[in-house]
């Protein structure tokens, strides 16, 4: 889909190139993440792809077509772009901001309005709340989401995203990442994604391109990058605890079957059943669900002694937090650390209980790999 050949950029007045002889091929539907230290040329590479910067040398092919021969404005209209500094237009409402490209393309008003609503919801901004606000009335993280919505509103087949989740807190960031992956699974866009955060790179990518001082050091799948870093620089970049990083690569639903720990208790279960299940449980607790398999709560060993009651419903307590089955194992680990338990209940998108993951399960995954 995107092919860079010997791409070079020397800024006027500089003697060292910002990007040097870069060769990179990104397949259709892939997410390619550019990583590397600050100033290594990630942004410059991106801006050459949509021709905000004219390359000093080299070629860019998009769908086999020479991008340098194309009309830059037409080219850009079909490439979604999330700029590093967000760059929202301060004098336009959020709705107007998001509608920028549709307005440039002169879509009918109705279609634009619908589509704006849709993408705002997609990035987790309630259109009714936010569409008439001006950017100054938004938090940094919210602005960043508007930036993402603005880039994807016209459904461009290619997206360039320069640190799109840089300004949000780790929890929101994880949520946005998961949403992003869910959307991407459906849309299958070709995406170039820049980040400073190697964990984010491993989680989001189909391939990772490591850059240093304008040069491409290694371009590989995340798991190859982890198991076979090209040199010292790359292995330092991915860090020492590489096996833990694998937790980013594996989704919960991929291991859930292997760790299945029997059926959850129905809320109407009798005390005897509860005791029996508790005795078998390796987490000294049992999960309780209702008739629709929705999570009801959890019963620990102590709850049974402390409380009086007939059926499971009477004993159970709320769970502090759950996780969806499309999150990564690393997300599961974060949640466990956060709620201070050795396990976390897994639910699907409709909030139905899917299983439980424990610290032990994570340990096993890490051990197997190394």
């Amino acid at each position: 889909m995107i092919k860079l050949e010997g791409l070079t950029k020397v800024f006027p007045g500089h003697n060292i190139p910002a990007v040097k002889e870069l060769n990179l091929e990104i397949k259709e539907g892939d997410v390619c993440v550019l990583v590397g230290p600050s100033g290594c040329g990630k942004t410059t590479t991106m801006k050459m792809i949509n021709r905000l910067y004219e390359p000093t040398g080299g070629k860019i092919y998009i769908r086999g077509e020479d991008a340098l021969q194309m009309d830059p404005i037409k080219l850009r209209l079909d490439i979604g772009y999330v700029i590093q500094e967000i760059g929202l237009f301060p004098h336009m409402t959020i709705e107007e901001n998001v509608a920028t490209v549709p307005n440039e393309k002169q879509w009918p008003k109705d279609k634009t309005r619908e589509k704006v609503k849709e993408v705002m919801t997609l990035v987790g901004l309630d259109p009714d709340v936010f569409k008439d606000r001006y950017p100054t009335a938004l938090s940094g993280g919210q602005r960043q989401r508007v930036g993402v919505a603005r880039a994807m509103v016209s459904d461009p087949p290619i997206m360039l995203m320069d640190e799109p989740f840089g300004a949000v807190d780790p929890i929101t960031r994880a949520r946005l990442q998961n949403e992003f992956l869910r959307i991407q699974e459906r849309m299958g866009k070709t995406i170039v994604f820049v980040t400073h955060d190697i964990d984010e790179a491993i989680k989001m990518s189909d391939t990772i391109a490591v850059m240093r001082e304008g040069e491409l050091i290694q371009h590989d799948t995340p798991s190859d990058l982890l198991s076979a870093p090209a040199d010292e620089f790359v292995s330092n970049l991915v860090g020492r605890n590489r096996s833990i990083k694998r937790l980013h690569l594996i989704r919960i639903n991929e291991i859930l079957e292997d760790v299945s720990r029997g059926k959850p208790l129905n809320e109407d279960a009798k005390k005897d059943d509860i005791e029996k299940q508790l005795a078998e449980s390796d987490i000294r607790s049992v999960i309780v669900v209702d008739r629709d398999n929705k999570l009801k709560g959890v019963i620990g060993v102590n709850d049974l002694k402390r409380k009086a009651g007939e059926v499971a419903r009477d004993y159970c307590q709320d769970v502090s937090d759950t996780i969806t089955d499309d999150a990564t194992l690393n997300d599961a680990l974060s949640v466990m650390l956060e709620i201070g338990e050795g396990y976390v209940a897994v639910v699907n998108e409709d909030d139905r209980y899917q299983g439980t993951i424990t610290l032990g399960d994570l340990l096993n995954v890490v051990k197997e790999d190394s």
Partner: protein
Amino acid sequence: MLRNIWVWVGIPLIMIGIAAAIVIYSVNNPTDSIVARMLTYERVFRVIREHMGLLLVSMTGATIVGVAGGIMLSRPSLYRIGRVMETIVNIGQTVPSLAVLALFYTILGLGFRVAVFALFLYSILPILRNTFAGIDGVEHNIIEAARGMGMHPLRILTRIELPIAFPIIVAGLRTAIVINVGAATLATFIGGGGLGDLIVTGLSVHRDMIIINGAVIAAVTAILLDYLIGKVEERVVRWA
């Protein structure tokens, strides 16, 4: 709505009313024959017409030239010249209005047209500078985002740069109008006519009534214009 009528119609009418009352009283109750001869409705209307002519012509021209020039100088190809121009304009603005009129008189002689031309040139300065500074002040990453999304340079100018710079351009217009109204009262010294005529006549024949009439009308004109553009200024920014 009622508030709007009050702001845009009520207060201006009151100001004009005060000035009109003073004029009507003075013309009907002249202190002596000299005042009676020199302060007539005809004369008052003539100087007002001249004054408005000075303002309107010079401000219209200055706005067109100032805004267009500011936009041109902010384009990348002329940007360097723009920076130099900023310095020159700052010095130019320090030159007092009387000096400007006097110098134009020595070059072009007396008359309405000379006065208009001097006012026109003098009023360009704040408009040109603010237009340039306003566009120059638009953050680079905002322009880059617009370009990156495929906006045409002309659309970037009209949809992004000018709207963001607009409050600053209006502030420049306000400065220009205040300066212009003030300088227009000096036009009389180089034969440009206007409300200054009334004041100067009053001073030369030592009749306070004539002086006050000229001064009141000039002051009300200035205050009214400044008031109105100040209200516009309050309205233009919904987003900051």
